[in-house]
Structure formats: C-alpha cells, structure tokens
C-alpha cells in the first residue's frame, strides 16, 4: 500500500511542480492590465486554452459518474462537445472583431460599450458574471478535494487548500498567459490519460459490445436508452440539452477566452480543433465509468459513496499505481485549467470593471496589475472557504452556473451579436434580471424542494428570451421621418 501511494504521490507532485514553475515563468509576459487579462495568444495555445477551460472537474468525474449511476442514457449528454463548436462559431469571430476594434478587456466592457456607455449595464453584467463564476469555481475546488482525499488519504480541507494554492500562484503571477500555457500542458495530460484508461478498460472487458452485455446482466435499466424516472426522464434530458447547449458556450469562462486570440484567422480552424480535442477527453472516460459499474458488481472495487467518486475509485483499485497517479494528475489538470480561467475572468471584474472604471480611472498599469493579482487571490480564497463545506454534488453546482449563464448572458449575447434590432438596453437589462431571478428561484426549488420533470432553467431561458424581445421592441427608438420638402 505504501509503495502504491508513493508512486501516486511522485507523479502528482511532479505534475504540480512542472505546472507551477511553467505558470510562474510566464510572469515576464505581463507588463500591463491587458497582458494579464486577455494577452494575445498564438493559435495552438488558444485552442488548448479553450478546450481545457471547457473541460472541468465535472467533465472527468461528474459526467462519467452519471454514466456509472444511470448507464448509457447519459451518452446523450453531448452539449459540451457541441458547446465547443458554438463558442468558436456563434460567438467567436463577431465578438473578437468588436472587442479588438473598441479595445475592450472584459465582458462587462462589452455590455457597457454596446449600450452606449451604460454604467448600469456594466454593473448588472458584473453581478451576473460574479455569481456564475464563483459557483463554478467552488465546484472545481470540491472536485480537487474529492480526488486527493480519496486517493491520497489527505484531509479534505488540506486537499482543497493545496489545489487552490498552486492554481492561485501561477494565475496571480502570469494572468492569462500563465493560465493558457499551463492549460496547454494540462490538456496533454488529461487527453493522454483519457485514451490510456479507455484502452485498458476495453481490454479488460473485451470491447464495447461485451461491456454493454455485462451491464444488461446487472440491470437492464443501465442500457435503456430512455430513462423512465425523474430526475433524468426523457423530457428532463431533452430540456437539459436545450438549456446547456446555450448555457455552456455562453458561460463567462468560455466567452472571455475569445478575447485572447491573437489573430482572427484562428477562428477558421478553431471549431474543428476544439470539437475533436474535446471529444477525445470527454467521451472516453464515460465508457470507463461503465466499466466501473461492472467492476463493483464483480467485487473488484468497493461501492463508491456517490457517483462522483466512481471513476477515481475504479482507477485506484483496478489500475496500476502509475496509471492511478497519472489519472489523479489529469483530474487536477481538468479542475485547475477551468478554475484558473474563472479566476482571470472574475478578477478582471474587480480591477477593470469596478476599480478602474468606477473608482480610480487614472490608475497606472502597474497599480492595475497589482490590484488584479490581489483580486485573484481574494476570489480564490472566497471560493476555497465555500468549497470547504460544498453545498451539493458537483453536477448540480455546474448545471446551476451554466443554466444561469444561458438564461442571462446566452440570450443577450446571441441577440447583441446576431440580431441587434431585437435588443435594446432596457430589454437586455430586463432579460438579465428575469433570467437571474427566475433561474435562481426554480433552480433552488428543483434541488431543495421538489424535483421538476424538466430542467429548472428552461422556464428562465424562455422567459428571458420573451422579456428581452418584447421589451426591446416596445422600447426601440422610433425613426423620425424626414420632413418633406
């Protein structure tokens, strides 16, 4: 047992050391607030940055845990793969051109500028962004804590603290440069790990068909393509798909990545690179989780306490310690690569959107970078404190964050970029408020009062769209007819 733990620790520590050193070394690229917040990233780096940001703790242990618990029905959960496509096509080029033309740094910058310098829209966007980013940050720290507690026997609080400290160190130092360069390494780690554990699982169970047959032997419901009972009945799955298809790509951590591309021509091949790169890392662990379900029945591993623990348990008990160490490094890579982007996006809210724009417009670049680093540190600590007592399982945290993003930012951003005649300042503000209030209320009801037969954020999404378009049409400035000669 000690030798096993030693092997796992060695690999994990090597990963932590390499990531931290590389991330901190990027500090030399940061001389201004612009460098820290968006930078100008080359093609391969921005591609890996987008995929790694999309690929979170939820993608590794949350999504595969659902396959462990509910079986093949959760292969329908493909919005993250299509989300990569939407980020790079629907939002990508148009938003990139706009922000570069007007020298914008943050998403609230875009809202303020688009609506004629409205400070109110900036503040509203800051509130929405803060809520959606902090909820997701908590989910990432929770996933890090689960992985380290389970596989390394480290106390949960220490695990969360360690993960936070390393991520904060390189994010504070290098800003988006530190985040993007480490994301590149992190993507290589988790893609290689996903391929490795998939191949080993298929070899163990004799291929996909054999695995499906063994699952059917355990419980026919595990291979049922349509689950019959809530919370994951077919109407729920469909509405869930609709909500997160817009929610995931419009989440601030994704939209803000678009700002960082150095050249517009990258958007030509980014959709292809993102969808292919993400599919490998996302789909393969889902098959591995099905193997975990069979392994539990065969007595090869103990029953995990929750579905989130299924994949880590399986790898720990049924794979070589070197693979288990590699998997743990990949899990940290997935969580840290999402958490660091969230920290860049949320820290910039305080420095750019509140300090520079509302408190001290004359602050020099050195001071701005300093306060952005302080803000990143404070946000990391706030999320750490919440993560020490996580309010629920990881999927719920992630879906709440992305559901809220869809019915607020998703609705308004799509209209702002593609149907400007259907959105005014009053309409956009109403949509943000309605989406946030209805989404939070129904999300709370569906989780803590009674499960709903559909995704709780769907009514919020629909009401946000209707409110935005109706109010915008009512408040659209009238065209004054020219007086006749």
């Amino acid at each position, binding site marked *: 047992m000690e030798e096993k733990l030693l092997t796992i620790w060695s690999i994990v520590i090597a990963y932590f050391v390499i990531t931290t050193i590389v991330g901190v070394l990027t500090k030399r690229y940061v001389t201004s607030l612009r460098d820290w917040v968006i930078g100008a990233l080359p093609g391969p780096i921005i591609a890996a940055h987008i995929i790694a940001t999309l690929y979170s703790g939820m993608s590794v242990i949350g999504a595969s845990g659902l396959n462990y618990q509910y079986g*093949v*029905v959760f*292969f*329908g959960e*493909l919005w993250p*793969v*299509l989300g990569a*496509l939407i980020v790079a*096509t629907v939002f990508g*080029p148009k938003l990139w*051109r706009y922000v570069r033309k007007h020298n914008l740094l943050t998403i609230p910058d875009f809202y303020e500028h688009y609506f004629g310098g409205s400070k109110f829209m900036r503040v509203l966007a800051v509130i929405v962004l803060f809520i959606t980013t902090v909820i997701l940050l908590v989910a990432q720290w929770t996933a890090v804590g689960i992985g380290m507690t389970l596989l390394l026997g480290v106390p949960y609080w220490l695990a969360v603290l360690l993960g936070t400290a390393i991520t904060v160190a390189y994010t504070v130092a290098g800003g988006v440069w530190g985040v993007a360069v480490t994301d590149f390494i992190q993507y290589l780690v988790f893609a290689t790990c996903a391929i490795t554990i998939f191949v080993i699982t298929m070899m163990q169970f004799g291929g*996909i*068909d054999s695995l*499906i047959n063994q699952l*059917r032997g355990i419980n026919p419901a595990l*291979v*049922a*393509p*349509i689950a019959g009972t809530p919370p994951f009945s077919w109407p729920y799955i469909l509405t869930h798909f609709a909500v997160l298809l817009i929610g995931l790509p419009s989440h601030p951590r994704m939209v803000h990545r678009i700002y960082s591309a150095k*050249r*517009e*021509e990258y*958007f*030509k*091949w980014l*959709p*292809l690179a993102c*969808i*292919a790169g993400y*599919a490998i890392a996302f*789909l393969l662990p889902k*098959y591995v989780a099905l193997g975990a379900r069979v392994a539990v029945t065969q007595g090869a591993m103990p029953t995990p306490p929750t579905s989130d623990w299924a994949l880590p348990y399986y790898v720990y008990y049924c794979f070589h310690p070197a693979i288990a160490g590699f998997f743990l490094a990949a899990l940290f890579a997935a969580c840290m690569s999402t958490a660091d982007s969230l920290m860049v996006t949320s820290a910039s809210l305080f420095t750019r959107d509140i300090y520079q724009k509302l408190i001290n417009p004359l602050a020099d670049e050195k001071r701005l970078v300093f306060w952005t680093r302080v803000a990143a540190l404070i946000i990391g600590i706030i999320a750490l404190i919440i993560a020490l007592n996580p309010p629920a399982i990881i999927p719920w945290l992630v879906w709440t964050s992305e559901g809220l993003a869809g019915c607020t930012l998703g609705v308004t951003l799509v209209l702002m970029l593609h149907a400007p005649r259907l959105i005014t300042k009053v309409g956009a503000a109403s949509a943000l408020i309605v989406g946030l209030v209805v989404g939070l209320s129904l999300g709370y009801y569906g989780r803590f009062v009674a499960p709903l037969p559909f995704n709780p954020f769907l009514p919020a999404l629909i009401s946000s769209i209707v409110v935005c378009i109706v109010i915008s049409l009512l408040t659209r400035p009238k065209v004054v007819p020219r007086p006749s000669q």
Partner: protein
Amino acid sequence: MSLEEVLILGMPLWAFVLIVIGLLISIIWFFKFKPEEG
C-alpha cells in the same frame, strides 16, 4: 432485431454520430470562413 435493441446498442454510438455532424459543420466552416482582418 427490434427497434429497442437497435436503440440500446446504438446509444453509445450516437454520441459519435453527433460528433461527426459537429466535425462536418466545422469542416464546412473551415472552407467558408473569411477573416475580415487585413
């Protein structure tokens, strides 16, 4: 083979079908997209 059996066996595969559709859209986008920058 019944429709249900086809669905059961096909479920893990339709993920790939959807990804192939996504890849096709990306390839079309690759050939159609024209950057505006100089």
